[in-house]
């Protein structure tokens, strides 16, 4: 199953590696079961699967937010729990689906929080922190939000500010938990384009959980398909988004077409009337 993955990214270095990782929130049901996968530098890895298949949990394990009950996650061949917390935060940044921020922080204050791993004790931001935060806002097109309250901007703007905040951590890998699920198509594309730019121009490795299979098909270089906590398939989108695979995992009738513009697969559901 890994052959194809290895072929496409043969000469790239391994960044993130999960070895036999399991996790359960409750005793009865495991959320992630024996998950092993590799992410190479420069990958744009999409994590897909039905609701409750363990996408968020897998990403939280990869970001070191949850500790696996079995197995281990490695970053550059070193267990992520052997890194100092702040040191790991300088390598990989995690972006939540929803921030849950209730206090009226200004957007730039949120972005500057990304500088946390580089500072200690009671301190204020240095001019260098501010320069880096400013660049992160530039890259994500959020400079016009300077001075606005985070709680008062739109959902799409919030996600871009959160990405800017993650970029202020100066990470080499971004781990995003369904960042576009609550957004309409315009903002979905906007955010994925930002991520593509970061991936292509700044060689940031992207690991992203996605709901929309068609967007996953267009933007991701690799896909990881989850069902009931298990990785059931992995590889490039053209192979994973095959009719039989998707039908069995999602338990839905679909058909696939090819987008003539970029040759990507497009998935259409079959309705009952067909």
């Amino acid at each position, binding site marked *: 199953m890994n052959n194809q993955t290895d072929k496409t990214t043969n000469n790239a270095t391994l960044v993130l590696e999960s070895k036999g990782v399991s996790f359960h929130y409750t005793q009865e049901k495991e959320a992630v079961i024996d998950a092993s996968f590799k992410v190479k530098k420069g990958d744009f890895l999409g994590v897909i699967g039905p609701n409750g298949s363990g996408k968020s949990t897998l990403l*939280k394990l990869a*970001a*070191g*937010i949850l*500790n696996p009950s079995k197995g281990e996650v490695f970053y550059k061949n070193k267990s992520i729990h052997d890194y*100092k*917390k*702040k*040191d*790991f*935060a300088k390598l990989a*940044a*995690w972006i*939540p689906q929803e*921030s*849950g*921020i*209730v*206090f*009226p*922080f*200004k957007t*730039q*204050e*949120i972005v*500057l*929080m*990304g500088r*946390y*791993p580089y*500072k200690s*004790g*009671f*301190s*204020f*931001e240095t*001019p260098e922190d*501010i320069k880096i*935060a*400013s660049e992160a*806002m530039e890259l994500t097109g959020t*400079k016009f939000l*300077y001075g606005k309250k985070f709680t008062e901007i739109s959902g799409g703007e919030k996600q871009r500010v959160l990405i800017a905040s993650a970029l202020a*951590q100066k990470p080499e890998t971004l781990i995003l938990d369904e960042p576009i699920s609550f957004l309409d198509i315009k903002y979905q594309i906007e955010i994925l384009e930002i991520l593509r730019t970061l991936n292509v121009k700044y060689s940031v490795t992207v690991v992203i959980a996605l709901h929309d299979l068609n967007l996953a098909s267009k933007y991701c270089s690799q896909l990881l398909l989850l069902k009931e906590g298990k990785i059931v398939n992995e590889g490039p989108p053209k192979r994973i988004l095959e009719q039989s695979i998707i039908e069995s995992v999602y338990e839905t009738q679909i058909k696939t077409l090819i987008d003539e513009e970029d040759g990507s697969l497009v998935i259409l559901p079959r309705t009952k009337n067909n």
Partner: protein
Amino acid sequence: MSIEFTGKKIFVPLGLFFAFFLSTLALGPMIGPVDIDLSNALFGENSDSRNVDAEIFFLARLPRILLAAIAGAGLAVAGAVFQALLRNDLAAPFTLGVSSGASLGAVIAIRFLGVSPQGFSLVPIAAFLGSLLAIALVFGIVPNKRGELPAPVMILAGVTVNFFFAALVMFIHYISDISQSFQIVRWLMGGLDVTDYSTLLCISPLVLIGIACLIFFSRDLNLLSAGIESAQSRGVDIIFVQRVGFICASLITGAVVSVCGPITFLGLIVPHIVRLIVGPDNRILIPASMFFGAAFLIMCDTTARTIIAPAEIPVGIITAMLGGPFFVWLLRKKL
């Protein structure tokens, strides 16, 4: 457009809050049912005849003003920190049951213990122990297998402890005689009237060290207040910071309540008001709340002891009566 340097703009608002605090601290001892001659109090002869001005200034008013400052500062900072830790701007120092625990301790002391053989009141000590019991109960109820302290569960546990202890307080109140009953009611209203310098010396170190500690962790509290998992992914030691935060804020609250009783509302509204002015950055919010809380309680207490002089109103009544309408006005203005 460049991003402003955060360090620059903190000193102006903080300086204003500090100046406000200093002016209440200076004016407070001047105001009261009896006019005093300040120059006589400070520099007057103190040889054979009694210096009444100095006695009123140094023995009656000053310790009380200083206690108000310490209590107000402590409750306001504890409120700000609970709001940040629980990511809920309706949290207050009493959300986790600290005041009801203290009340239970005080009520038990009033009903069953009276005064110690040495003649000092056991009420503050029992109240402080009660507040510790409440904290221990809340932490015991919350299942923290992985060392996490989920905010909604914490709040629920606090509310439960509050109700349970309130029921016990009512029960003991019910079986008390009329003079104990009056003492109990009076204690539950909160007040600063039993003051000498020794009380002040007892609670000041705890409150001040607690505040200093919380200010030191205020940058970590910022990240926690913006989301626990995000904070964790950025390298915040969330378990440690949450523990330090909850323990310091609870101890501050317990110390203040054991001496002053549950002074309601201050711990909720002061951080709110200050946040509306300086924003939610805890590095500014906590010290500014400290100054404003101190100033606010000095003002309330000055009102409490002058408005129906020579009698006094329990200060807890004033904080809620002044604070409530002011808060509503502020909220409406903001919307």
